[in-house]
């Protein structure tokens, strides 16, 4: 039992890296996609729609296998498993994140936009100083769920040679045949990671409520 811990912990670090990387990619992708979706230009709106439907309509595992096995045949180079996993899991999460952001932004009452216009605020100021600060409390709880889903999805990276918890657990299982112990430990590690991530998101949620004077 104890001799498998170092390997599992090394896997935990990699899982943390994949998840963190994917969350960064997802945040950027979701922000870009939602900005394009809210644009009045069809040339911007449509690519974002296609991106969102494509990544939400297929399965993360298929996207990952596609990027790992099929894409290098088309591309002139082969991305490392880690990069491919972070990119795919990030783009997958970004598609779901874009819909969360869009729902929250559209829920800000029309009058807030009008008032900001009446005060002669630029459209950037309107977005960043008026609309977005009000959406944080709406965005953070579903985002916390999304990030936990992304942590769980990072387990799929182990199937394309990323040496995360899942990958190391498979190696340990094959060499020790202690199936229950290996996968039991893996489950517990993921559970603890999810609890930590959820706790962190709750702190963030509290902290984000201060600027707009909402009751905590």
């Amino acid at each position, binding site marked *: 039992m104890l001799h498998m811990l170092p390997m599992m912990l090394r896997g935990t670090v990699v899982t943390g890296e994949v998840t963190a990387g994917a969350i960064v990619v997802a945040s950027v992708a979701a922000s870009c996609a939602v900005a394009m979706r809210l644009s009045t230009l069809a040339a911007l709106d449509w690519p974002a729609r296609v991106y969102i*439907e*494509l990544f*939400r*309509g*297929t*399965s*993360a*595992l*298929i*996207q990952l*296998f*596609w990027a790992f*096995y*099929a894409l290098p*045949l*088309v591309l002139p180079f082969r991305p490392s498993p880690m990069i491919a996993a972070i990119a795919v899991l990030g783009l997958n999460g970004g598609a779901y994140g874009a819909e969360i952001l869009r729902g929250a932004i559209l829920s800000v009452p029309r009058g807030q936009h009008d008032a900001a216009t009446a005060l002669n605020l630029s459209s950037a100021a309107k977005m960043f100083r008026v609309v977005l600060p009000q959406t944080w409390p709406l965005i953070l709880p579903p985002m916390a769920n999304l990030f*936990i889903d992304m942590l*769980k*999805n*990072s*387990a*799929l990276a*182990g*199937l394309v040679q990323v040496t995360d*918890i*899942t990958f190391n*657990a*498979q190696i340990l*299982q094959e060499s020790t045949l202690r*199936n*229950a112990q290996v*996968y*039991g430990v*893996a*489950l517990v590690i*993921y*559970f603890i990671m*999810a*609890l930590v991530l*959820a706790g962190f998101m709750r702190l963030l949620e509290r902290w984000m409520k201060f600027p707009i004077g909402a009751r905590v």
Partner: protein
Amino acid sequence: MKWNWPFAWHILPVILRGMVITIEATVLGMLLALILGLIWAMLLILPNRWLFWSTRGLTEFIRDTPLLIQLFFCYYVLPEIGITVPALLTGITVLGINYSAYTSEVYRAGLQNIPRGQWDAARALNFTAAQTFIRIILPQALPPIVPAMGNNLIAMFKDTPLLSTITVMEMLNRAMIIGDKTFRYLEPLTIVGILFLIISLLASALIGFTQRRILVRR
């Protein structure tokens, strides 16, 4: 490497045969999730603290751990304790148990929307608790949660490729076997992706339609 149409048409029937298993796993898994989820939801509203916390703990653990590891765990550990079942059955069971943690939340939301007065009125009319639940509460709680259950169904459908990791011959597994044999991964994997895309787009359109119907009826 270029897309090869004759090859794509040649492998399409093989992959479509995998779709039968994909759909079988989704339907049976969802059935199990609907039954188990309702049981969890009922245990959560019973006035028993011990039952509440153990159910809560179980569903929370299921929701906070990856489906993939749950699949591996059951696939390797069940035979050790003397349960040998086909991989597909293990897969369906794990999918069902996994999603029951989500459906129980949906049921709970539906049940919470039923005003307390309905329970009181049923008691005043001398209904037993079981009668009240089955004949008064459930018929009111179920219709509004149909769209949310539909979303769970689509999510489960998109999770079935994970069953390929425990040797179930669904679409992704067949595509990968074709790829391993012919070294052409582009066509099989793209076909599987497109098939998933078509079905989930159709299904979400259907859910949107039902949602509007339910809203209109109110």
